[in-house]
């Protein structure tokens, strides 16, 4: 045993000790290499590898969000976005037979030759065949199953009421962004922003996990306008009939809620179809009621009278001498079309005497008159927020010459937009409180600003009631069952700084006069027929719209049903 063990031990000891050390250090080195490689991959080169890995299964996808709905005050949609499909092709990948091309062209309602030429345009990678196709047509395209033809979802804006509120609502472009009108004004609220997110997809293309949201989709909010769809239709159709009947160039109408300043209807004729704007000129797209300014003519007179009453210079019964129907200031002469003798202040309004109004204005210091007109909202935008609103022009009183102060009394040398004019009348309707206008539905009536005393407002309202009585300029504005207060206007148009024999006929009125609920302002631009006075052209539009609107809103009568008195003679023509 002993020898064996010694033999063995000698065998073992025969191994040189460096061998085990070498082995140990080799293993250590191997370990170190592995460790170094791990550090390199996990720490230093990590970002690159992670990215490569993500590329294999991660995808960034868009999340579509759609534009909010614009509805009327009763929730009826006025503008709504709905998805449509756009057909695009990748010409390099297209593989279609002649029959398929023909069927595709048939579905898209395009000439087959054009479709074929677009498919053959292999220089490009992305060609739209047709944008904004209704979903059912798009489905037929998919069913053809042509390789390289694909769909892309987009949103398209529809306006169910068509031309009725076209200029007010405006429109969006092909990318569904507001371009005009309320669509533009409300872009930041109703506009949507598509989001994007990173997801993990499996090999079948299913999204299996949401890694992170890169950008949250921001769907547009729904917005409720102050417009009443039925009143809007009523106002538009009545206006369009009048414009056509009098062969006028255009017409505008504004219906305001006299208690809240909300715009219930705002229409222009001629109009265009916002669902298909082919052939709509810039002229048609313009919202004349807000964007165009005009010289209001006699519809300004109530403000002159109110200013004189407020200053304590006159009372409704004060007599003003308008004998001869003309008045000379410097080199200029002011005329009345129908000379009367001595008139009361109330009759000056009723018969719309320029001389009477001018005398009242001249009795006021320019500064006071300017302050009053400015407080009534003239010379500055109404704050409606409508894009491109014209503020109108009210020159600084320091630059006024007496003749200008006199003509301003009857609405010459001052310009307004129709909405601004209608809004100024809220001061008469609300016992002296001028209300801000709103195109959005309000939850509570806004705070007004006092521009004249309640007594002055009531006195002017009483005078305005005389305007529609026989002997006034607008008996056609009377409404069965309701008392009406209003004022006509007929102004010469200004062309290149000169007054020409074309007219703007207007009427602004409120009813029921005992406690006004609505204000309707009508403007007919350049009536070409035999009639062109505000009392003949604009007043009938007012009475039709106002009467039906009061019925729709269920406003109680404040007069007997047989209150309408037909004028016996000719209607008093107002001064132009």
């Amino acid at each position, binding site marked *: 045993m002993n020898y064996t063990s010694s033999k063995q031990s000698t065998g073992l000891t025969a191994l040189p000790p460096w061998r085990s050390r070498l082995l140990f250090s080799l293993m250590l080195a191997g370990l170190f290499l592995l460790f170094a490689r791990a550090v390199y991959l996990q720490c230093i080169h990590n970002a690159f590898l992670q990215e490569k890995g993500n590329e294999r299964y991660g995808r960034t996808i868009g999340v579509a969000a*759609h534009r909010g*709905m614009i509805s009327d005050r009763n929730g*009826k*949609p006025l503008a*709504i*976005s*709905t*998805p449509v499909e756009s057909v695009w092709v990748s010409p390099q990948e297209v593989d279609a037979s002649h029959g398929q091309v023909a069927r595709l062209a048939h579905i898209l309602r395009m000439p087959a030759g054009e479709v074929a030429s677009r498919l053959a345009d292999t220089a490009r990678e992305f060609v739209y065949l047709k944008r904004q196709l209704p979903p059912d047509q798009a489905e037929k395209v998919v069913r053809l199953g042509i390789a390289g033809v694909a769909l892309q979802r987009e949103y398209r804006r*529809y306006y*169910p*009421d*068509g031309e*009725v509120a076209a200029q007010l609502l405006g429109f969006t472009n092909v990318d569904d962004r507001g371009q005009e009108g309320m669509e533009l004004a409300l872009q930041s609220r109703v506009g949507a922003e598509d989001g994007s997110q990173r997801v993990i997809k*499996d090999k079948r293309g*299913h*999204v*299996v*996990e*949401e890694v992170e949201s890169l950008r949250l989709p921001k769907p547009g909010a729904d917005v409720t306008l102050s417009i009443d*769809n*039925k009143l809007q*239709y*009523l106002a538009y*159709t009545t206006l369009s009939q009048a414009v056509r009947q009098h062969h006028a160039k255009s017409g505008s109408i504004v219906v305001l809620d006299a208690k809240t300043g909300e715009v219930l209807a705002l229409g222009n004729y001629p109009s265009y179809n916002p669902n298909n704007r082919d052939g709509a000129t810039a002229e048609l797209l313009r919202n004349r009621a807000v964007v165009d300014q005009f010289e209001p003519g006699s519809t300004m007179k109530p403000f002159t009278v109110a200013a004189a009453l407020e200053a304590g210079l006159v009372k409704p019964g004060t007599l003003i001498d308008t004998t001869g129907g003309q008045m000379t200031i410097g080199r200029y002469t002011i005329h009345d079309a129908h000379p009367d003798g001595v008139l009361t202040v109330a009759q000056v309004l009723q018969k719309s005497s320029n001389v009477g109004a001018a005398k009242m204005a001249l009795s006021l210091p320019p500064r006071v008159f300017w302050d009053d007109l400015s407080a009534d909202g003239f010379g500055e935008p109404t704050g409606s927020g409508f894009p491109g609103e014209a503020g109108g022009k009210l020159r600084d009183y320091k630059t006024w010459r007496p003749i200008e102060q006199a003509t301003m009394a009857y609405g010459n040398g001052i310009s307004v937009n129709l909405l601004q004019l209608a809004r100024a009348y809220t001061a008469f309707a609300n016992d002296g409180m001028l209300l801000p206008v709103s195109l959005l539905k309000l939850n509570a009536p806004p705070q007004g600003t006092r521009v004249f005393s309640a007594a002055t407002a009531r006195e002017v309202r009483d005078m305005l009631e005389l305007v529609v009585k026989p002997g006034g300029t607008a008996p056609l504005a009377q*409404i*069965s*069952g309701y008392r009406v207060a209003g004022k006509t206007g007929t102004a010469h148009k200004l062309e290149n700084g000169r007054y020409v024999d074309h007219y703007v006929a207007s009427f602004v009125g409120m009813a029921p006069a*005992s*406690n006004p609920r609505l204000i309707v302002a009508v403007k007919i631009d350049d009536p070409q027929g035999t009639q062109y006075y505000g009392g003949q052209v604009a007043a009938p539009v007012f009475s039709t719209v106002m*009467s*039906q609107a009061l*019925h729709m809103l*269920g*406003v*109680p*009568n*404040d*007069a*007997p*049903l*047989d209150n*309408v008195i037909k004028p016996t003679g000719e209607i008093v023509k107002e001064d132009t």
Partner: protein
Amino acid sequence: MPVDRLSLLLLAAAIGCALSVVTAQHKARKLFMVLQQEQARAQDMDVEWGQLQLELSTWATPARVERIAAQKLHMQMPAAESVHHIRIGQTEGVVTQP
């Protein structure tokens, strides 16, 4: 040996945990797919609702209602003189008798 038994136990627990992570992940992905489908369905319904609303308002435009009322049903707007508004149960506004 008690130490070895503990190690084995821990090893088994670790493997169990690892497997359950895998199943949980799988289940999560399956559920996520269901969620995605439901979300897509909700969006489709939203789209359909918009289209139906559009259709409704197109059929109910005042112009169309008026045309049908006048032509098919032979209705007409009564003259203003023959319409009288009365309020029931409310005192707001003064109603004058004709």
